[in-house]
């Protein structure tokens, strides 16, 4: 197995003591107390200068592959709300206002309501997980995310017996987000997962990457990361999480159902009318590499789909 998955951390997996103290010192010198306060900081316009995060347990999921440079992961993005070019989102990142931020949690949950970002994150220890990210456009990256399991969050709000799916919405702010002034897609951007996919321990909500607060163009302040699905499933800048009984509408699927399925599991065997999915270009590499089924996470997640025809439910 090329990556190591360690939900139960051993002592050696936790951030080395010295590094830990250095981070502490930095945080003190910056007069920032507690993760919530750091998260509340707006990520600065230049991607390289986004604020560091507080205490993060590293090594929760590691990957024995070279990480994509931060400049590439934060400079080459798809985030149509901030422009359709790959470099538009980083250029226009400061149009997205991430403070104050709250998330509405509703639908089939025992405890619905609106919750501030700080309250939402507070109970969850932050973990670093290094995941492959495979875009449907046949390029990929390796990114160290910081966040926590979506499942842990959902448990807090007590999914009801009728909950079958989870639906997510990105912020809708056409006044500020230039892309939303034009009907490229139907806004707000929506994504969804089946509840068992959402509860899978690999599925995470990220608040940072590379040890820092998420840059706006990467979906600050809160985004989904589902490493075995094409990148468009990993919705950015989430303001609403709804548990539903019916399969929710998702943006790209609604835009072109023949091209983008609801499941969108990385699958080299299912062709796409636009891109050959059998291989991918890892950003920073010249020759393409083979694409792995479920993006290399088959051992963990293939069981979610036993008995399903994945060429039909693509």
């Amino acid at each position, binding site marked *: 197995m090329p990556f190591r998955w360690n939900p139960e951390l051993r002592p050696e997996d936790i951030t080395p003591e010295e590094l830990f103290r250095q981070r502490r010192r930095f945080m003190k010198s910056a007069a920032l107390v507690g993760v919530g306060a750091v998260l509340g900081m707006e990520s600065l316009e230049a991607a390289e200068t986004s604020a560091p995060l507080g205490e993060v347990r590293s090594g929760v999921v590691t990957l024995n592959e070279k990480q994509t440079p931060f*400049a*590439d992961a934060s*400079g*080459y993005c798809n985030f*149509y709300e901030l422009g*359709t070019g*790959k*470099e538009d989102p980083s250029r226009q990142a400061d149009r997205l206002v991430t403070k104050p931020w709250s998330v509405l949690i509703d639908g089939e949950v025992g405890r619905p309501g609106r919750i501030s970002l700080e309250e939402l994150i507070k109970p969850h220890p932050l973990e670093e997980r290094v995941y492959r990210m495979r875009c449907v456009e046949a*390029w990929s990256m390796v990114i160290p995310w910081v966040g926590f399991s979506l499942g842990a969050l959902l448990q807090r709000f007590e999914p009801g017996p009728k909950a079958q799916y989870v639906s997510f919405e990105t912020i809708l702010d056409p006044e500020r987000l230039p892309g939303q002034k*034009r009907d*490229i*897609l139907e806004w707000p951007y929506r994504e969804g997962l089946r509840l068992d996919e959402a509860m899978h321990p690999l599925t995470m909500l990220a608040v940072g990457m590379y040890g820092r607060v998420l840059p706006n163009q990467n979906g600050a302040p809160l985004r989904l990361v589902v490493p075995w699905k094409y990148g468009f499933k990993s919705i950015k800048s989430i303001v609403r999480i709804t548990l539903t009984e019916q399969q929710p509408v998702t943006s790209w699927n609604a*835009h*072109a159902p023949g091209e983008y399925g609801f499941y969108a599991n990385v699958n080299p065997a299912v*062709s796409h*009318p*636009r*891109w*050959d999915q*059998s*291989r991918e*270009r890892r*950003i*920073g590499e*010249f*020759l*393409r590499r083979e694409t792995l089924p479920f993006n290399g996470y088959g051992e963990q997640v293939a069981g979610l789909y036993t008995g399903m025809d994945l060429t039909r439910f693509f």
Partner: protein
Amino acid sequence: MVGWRRLVWLIGLIPLGWLLLGLWQNTLGANPVERMIRFCGDWALWWLLMTLAVSPLRRLPGWSGLIRFRRLLGLLSLFYALLHVSGYVVLDHFFSWETIWRDILKRPYITVGLMAFLLLVPLGVTSTRAWMQRLGRHWGALHRLIYPASVLVMGHYVLMIKADYRAAFVYGVILAGLLGWRVVSVVVRSG
């Protein structure tokens, strides 16, 4: 006026120079292969539109000299299309003919792009004075292939787009104007 033509050639090489400089200085972003392919595709299209603009523009008083540059502009379009297609074959798929063949069969924007390219190549080959003389009056007929080729290029572009049709719309309107002008002038002349 060979001097002017040489100048246009040199201007035509500026985009390529810019690309090579970017490659050299590593300023082409996270995905330089994609950047290069798109850049050359854009320039192939732009030179093509400029080529098509010569005939209408030279009717303007004092612009008749423009005709001198028409073949040159067409060749520049083919040159960048060649770079574009080589970029796809060499940089994008590194001679993986199996993948390329599958792309041609399965991906309409590639199929249509190839058709456009196959129409443009003979125009480039027969652009020399010797071929002009050899083909005589057929030369003009052959070179009318630029019309279907330009429509196919537009189709290639539109089929490639995921969701944002803005730029393609602008080029589509320009192309429709350039081709529409020809239809109108034929009708006017024969009517």
